[in-house]
């Protein structure tokens, strides 16, 4: 259970309500993260301007960036973030739940080519406290054909996870969107 109360609708500014309505149009209702950020109009707007631009397909497609996000979230053990985005991978891209769990742990699976796996490993490394990325780590992904623009784009999915992981863990957000389903209450 979250250690801060979620705002009531009457607590929200018109601006935040508009953010909620936009998010709900796509996802049915605001995520618990969005809901909690509703306490701060500027924080809510910041998240509004962060998620979609970073995750929209560019050199890397949305699917791969979602994979990188859950890999970073798994490394930091943010159950809220890895649960919600893992479920998205299953529902939107048809992945098997077990495969998503293996991919986010950094295991090589048939559904992920070696170049994508190399990026997952880089992002997991980047999400490991106290172990900065090294020249060898960058060389390893370049060896799989990724250029520097793609590497920065991949790292951006990981740093976005850092932002949301920190907030979600700090306020102890519950699992989102669907009722808890795993043995620990999270996907």
């Amino acid at each position, binding site marked *: 259970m979250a250690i801060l109360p979620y705002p009531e609708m009457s607590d929200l500014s018109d601006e935040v309500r508009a953010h909620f309505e936009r998010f709900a149009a796509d996802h049915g209702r605001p995520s618990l993260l969005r809901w909690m950020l509703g306490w701060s109009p500027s924080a809510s707007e910041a998240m509004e301007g962060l998620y979609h631009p*970073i995750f929209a397909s560019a050199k890397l497609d949305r699917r791969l960036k979602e994979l990188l996000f859950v890999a970073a979230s798994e490394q930091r053990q943010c159950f809220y973030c890895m649960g919600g985005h893992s479920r998205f991978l299953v529902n939107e891209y048809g992945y098997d739940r077990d495969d998503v769990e293996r991919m986010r742990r950094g295991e090589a699976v048939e559904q992920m080519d070696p170049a994508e796996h190399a990026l997952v490993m880089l992002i997991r490394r980047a*999400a490991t406290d106290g172990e900065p*990325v090294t020249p060898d780590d960058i060389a390893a992904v370049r060896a799989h054909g990724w250029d520097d623009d793609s590497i920065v784009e991949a790292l951006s999915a990981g740093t976005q996870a850092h932002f949301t992981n920190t*907030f979600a863990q700090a306020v102890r957000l519950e699992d989102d969107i669907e009722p808890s389903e795993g043995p620990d209450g999270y996907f």
Partner: protein
Amino acid sequence: MVLITPPDLEEIDADVRADYETGRHEHRHFDALRRLLVRFPPALRAADGMYDLIMERGLLDRRLKEEIFVACSGVRGCGYAVAAHGGWLTANAGMTRAEVDGLAGGDPGGRSDPDRVLLAFARKVTAAPYRTVATDIDTLREAGFDERTIVEALTVVALSGWMNGYAASLGLDAGDSTGTAA
């Protein structure tokens, strides 16, 4: 050592160049990171947008937010962000370099009791966000903070994680910061 070279500004798209130049003065304290984010323009725009929204708006004052940023970056050992945001504090809030270094090392110096409570909470969240407990919130409330200001402070902690993550991934260190800011 920077692990990825920034792109040649003469060779990037005009609209990306314009975005980079627009924020160059205001955000010059983290210009080295912005130069690298030119490689993925949505991240550059997000950096500028988030910085303006989270650091400059809201109920908590800018100085306290910069202090939180430095304190959190110190916990994560991010010399780049300590130098960059410490630069803002020395240039705009009258802090000495020694005070900035003390703040990064966990010394809140002569700050008020409520600020000390908030800085201690920010450091705790940074070190282990999953270890927060309800009594942490009680302590913040007793110091005068409410949901709005607590969420605002937490977004500063999260933003520092965002920047620290880039710095650690791209090899940015204290020497890469210009150390001053508008």
